[in-house]
């Protein structure tokens, strides 16, 4: 206790650098799982949750202010509806071409094992993934924002 050092500035950059490094990788992993939903395990919901977890990563690294500036909450809420409309559209394509609702058509394209080989299942997976991505991102963003606003108003 000889001399109190006043000019020490704590920098918590480890979690921030980790968030920097793992946000692109997590996004790529989530999109891979969405797009390969018919070849490997996974699909819309799982990949959507993975993509939405990048919201948590950015929140952990940078705090609430950057989070609000990065993600537009109105944009996410509107695009969830876009995902739902796209899903029902790709399901209705089956009716138009004379089959059941949600029936897979155009399945003759491509070889077995290729990426674009499963007709409308690919696009339906993609739209479900889009909807879950925006929906779960909206949910997490809402809960974190709720937490922050209330804790600031309590003070």
């Amino acid at each position: 206790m000889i001399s109190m050092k006043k000019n020490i500035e704590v920098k918590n950059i480890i979690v921030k650098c980790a968030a920097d490094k793992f946000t692109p990788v997590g996004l790529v992993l989530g999109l891979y799982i969405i797009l390969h939903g018919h070849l490997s395990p996974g699909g819309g919901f799982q990949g959507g949750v993975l993509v939405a977890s990048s919201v948590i990563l950015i929140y952990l690294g940078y705090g609430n202010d950057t989070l609000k500036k990065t993600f537009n909450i109105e944009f996410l809420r509107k695009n969830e509806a876009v995902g739902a409309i796209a899903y029902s559209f790709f399901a209705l394509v089956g009716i138009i071409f004379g089959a059941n609702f949600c029936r897979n058509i155009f399945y003759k394209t491509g070889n077995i094992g290729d990426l674009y080989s499963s007709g409308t299942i690919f696009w339906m997976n993609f739209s479900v993934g889009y909807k879950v991505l925006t929906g779960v991102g909206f949910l997490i963003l809402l809960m974190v924002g709720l937490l922050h606003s209330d804790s600031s108003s309590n003070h």
Partner: protein
Amino acid sequence: MIELIYAGVFYILLSIVLIYRVAKGPNVVDRAVASDSIDIMTSVALILFSLYSGRGIYLDIALIIALLGFIGTVLISRYLEGRL
């Protein structure tokens, strides 16, 4: 390759031993550390089972657990620090 599954049994046995630390640990930090280790060992056992069973597609689950298992721990630490 029967050794792969033996090693998997060994890892799961070790993680069950670690549950003792989760049960007894004097405070929350010990439980969080043990939980992190259990996540890692579960992921390793999953890799070994996937290689034994010969399906490469099971590896995606291990990828997810390995990549995102640390979010929970960092979140718990933020909660303990009090600035969540």
